[in-house]
């Protein structure tokens, strides 16, 4: 079965600093990967996704992620964070176990941006 590991449960950074949130997935022949963000008291919204093609994927709010097949990673990056980026971030992989489509989520990384 597909699985996702988010290596950091909490990441504190200062405003305007770069940030990387790490995600590793279990290997599979074809992989579809997603990053979602959850702002306080809200549902999840899609940041970006990788289906195929270019390994560098750009998303909303200045985030990007790089798909690395050899390292089975899909790390999320932003060169300069803002206070408003404080949220919880979830990495997810599409699973087709049993022929049904599902998303398998990591446990989340809480990003706190301090002034």
């Amino acid at each position, binding site marked *: 079965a597909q699985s996702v590991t988010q290596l950091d*449960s909490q990441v504190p950074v200062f405003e305007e600093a770069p940030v990387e949130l790490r995600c590793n997935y279990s290997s599979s022949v074809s992989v*579809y990967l*997603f990053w*979602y963000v959850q702002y306080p*008291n*809200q*549902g*999840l*919204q*899609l940041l970006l*996704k990788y*289906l195929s093609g270019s390994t560098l994927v750009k998303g909303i709010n200045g985030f990007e992620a790089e798909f690395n097949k050899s390292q089975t990673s899909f790390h999320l990056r932003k060169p300069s964070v803002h206070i408003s980026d404080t949220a919880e971030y*979830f990495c997810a992989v*599409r699973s*087709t176990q*049993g022929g*049904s*489509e*599902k*998303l398998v*989520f*990591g*446990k*989340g990384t809480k990003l706190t941006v301090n002034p």
Partner: protein
Amino acid sequence: DVKVTQSSRYLVKRTGEKVFLECVQDMDHENMFWYRQDPGLGLRLIYFSYDVKMKEKGDIPEGYSVSREKKERFSLILESASTNQTSMYLCASSLWGMGYEQYFGPGTRLTVT
């Protein structure tokens, strides 16, 4: 814009009560999902449905059931609520197909006392 709405943002119920959580989506999506979100555990799939009257168990179906009588509506039922079902419940929907992302509702924070 896809809209997924959940019937309540906050709900307080007593142990043993039957609880209904409703989810409605307005984009004609085939797939609908119910997740439970707990601190440190991320999102765990309870049930999902890929068509009207069709349902499949997710990773943690015990203590829950679901109903999908219409394409746009997916209900989560706690037959006899227990305190360990206190949690945030998130509903999501998606089109059928490998690359389609899931769209989430705002969540229902359920407290069982």
